[in-house]
């Protein structure tokens, strides 16, 4: 009985030691936002991140999550937890794809985050919507559904963020200011793979930073 208790205590202690998480937020003017259908400026913000990895000091890569859908109307989707690294090692960088890679995009149907009922799959033409933002800007509606998995309109983007520290939580921020102030006024409606979709996806990938 006693030994069992000891094991339990040991287990709890070690898991607490290793419990780490990666969390996400979107920000406007440096303050983080959540969205709902009734919001004006941003009424919808959902996007995929895939192949989320931590790069350790000795350059090994730890896979944290294969596919994840962030929905900024649902706070529970914004945290990816678990015991990430096997010891308290310093993390050099966090890497992920913004969107879904081409091979997955042509390999049929999947469940979980990739289930087409999540509303992130085009029906009239195959392919995931990697990034969705909708709302109203200067009294005019805008809709960006960015996706496309094949050349030359491949929208998926690699993101690599420097960290160089050990922390219990790595917080990744997506500032939306440039998207709302610069990109969206240029292109208010994108709902299919195109050159514009790829260009905006590239911009968005460059906005992320770790706090």
């Amino acid at each position, binding site marked *: 009985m006693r030994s069992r208790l000891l094991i339990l205590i040991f287990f709890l202690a070690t898991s607490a030691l290793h419990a780490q998480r990666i969390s996400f937020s979107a920000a406007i003017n440096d303050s983080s936002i959540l969205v709902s259908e009734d919001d004006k400026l941003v009424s919808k913000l959902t996007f995929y991140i895939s192949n989320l990895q931590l790069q350790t000091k000795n350059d090994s890569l730890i896979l944290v999550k294969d596919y994840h859908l962030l929905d900024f109307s649902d706070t529970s989707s914004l945290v990816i937890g678990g015991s990430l690294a096997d010891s308290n090692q310093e993390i050099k960088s966090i890497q992920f794809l913004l969107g879904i890679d081409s091979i997955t995009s042509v390999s049929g*149907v999947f*469940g979980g985050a990739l*289930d087409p*009922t999540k509303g992130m799959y085009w029906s009239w033409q*195959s392919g995931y919507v990697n990034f969705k933002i909708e709302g109203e800007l200067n009294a005019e509606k805008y809709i960006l559904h960015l996706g496309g998995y094949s050349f030359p309109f491949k929208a998926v983007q690699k993101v690599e963020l420097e960290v160089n520290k050990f922390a219990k939580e790595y917080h990744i921020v997506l500032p939306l200011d440039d998207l709302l102030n610069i990109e969206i006024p240029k292109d208010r409606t994108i709902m299919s793979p195109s050159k514009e979709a790829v260009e905006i996806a590239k911009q968005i990938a460059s906005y992320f930073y770790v706090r």
Partner: protein
Amino acid sequence: MKNRFFALTVISLFLFSFQLAEWQGLNFPNYFPKPQYNFENNPLDSNKIELGRLLFYDAILSRDNSISCSTCHSPFSAFSHNDHQLSHGIGDSIGRRNAPPLFNLAWQYNFMWDGAINHLDMQALAPISSASEMGSDLKKVVQRLQNDTFYSTRFYRAFNDSVVTGERLLKALSQFQLTLNSANSKYDRVQRKEEVFTKQELKGYKLFKKACNSCHQEPLFSTYGFQQNFIEMDSSLNDFGKGEVTLFSDDSLKFKIPSLRNLKYSYPYMHDGRFYSLTKVLDHYTQEKTQQKFKNSGLKKIDLTSDEKVDLIAFILTLNDKEFVFNSKHRFPRELLTKWRESNN
């Protein structure tokens, strides 16, 4: 006793020599190529096939319970909509293209006349969501099926779990469609040396190899690639085919090459169903205007006398697979009738 054993051995050797190949539970003749579909992600299973069959014939997939997959893909027309130029959908709406027949889908890698769909699993999403077909969406369909005890039982049988998901629904639909295989036409029996072509069919076969085989390649009778066939664009439809999807000018007016199997059942022909007879199709291909365009784009000339056309058609008719069209395993499942009767009471 010994003699009997010998006879059995000979018979079984004979049976094996003619050759069913098998790939992940799918049976097909050994002169067929390896299927394209990746069965490892969706291994065939009789309960899943049966669930897919129920879903295929059930209008529960449409917004107002009026349209099922089989509305436009009827077994007796080789799973096309014969006598209809363009597909019909919800609220008497008319689609933009001819509903293609469904068979030998495991060998195809792009779906729709324009290739917009890249995998069989994802194909059903398009008609379910299209406003002029079923007018629903996958999420709604999943909720409906979840609330239907008939289906939660069937999902449990198929997936060991009664939870309905988009993935399961689409995989089950794929499973049923993967069993729709046509490989028992006279042509197939000739391949298996069970029958022989008539003189006329043989002449037609030779003409076919010369004039048609590069696009409508044996034994599936299509490469399932995309090609322009130089019919004039119907200005009321303004359909640019694959070019609308890829936005490449090279793909403009290219459409998926259809198989020549089962044409007796799947008329009318072409992506807009404009031709009601094979003679009309051949007339199009052999006319001077088309010939010139074929030549200009580096394709082989199709030059046929009227006698040769008759011979070629005689061969094409050997590709009709009656056994496939009347296969009771593919038909409307009677179980659905009982379900509907019960839900009406």
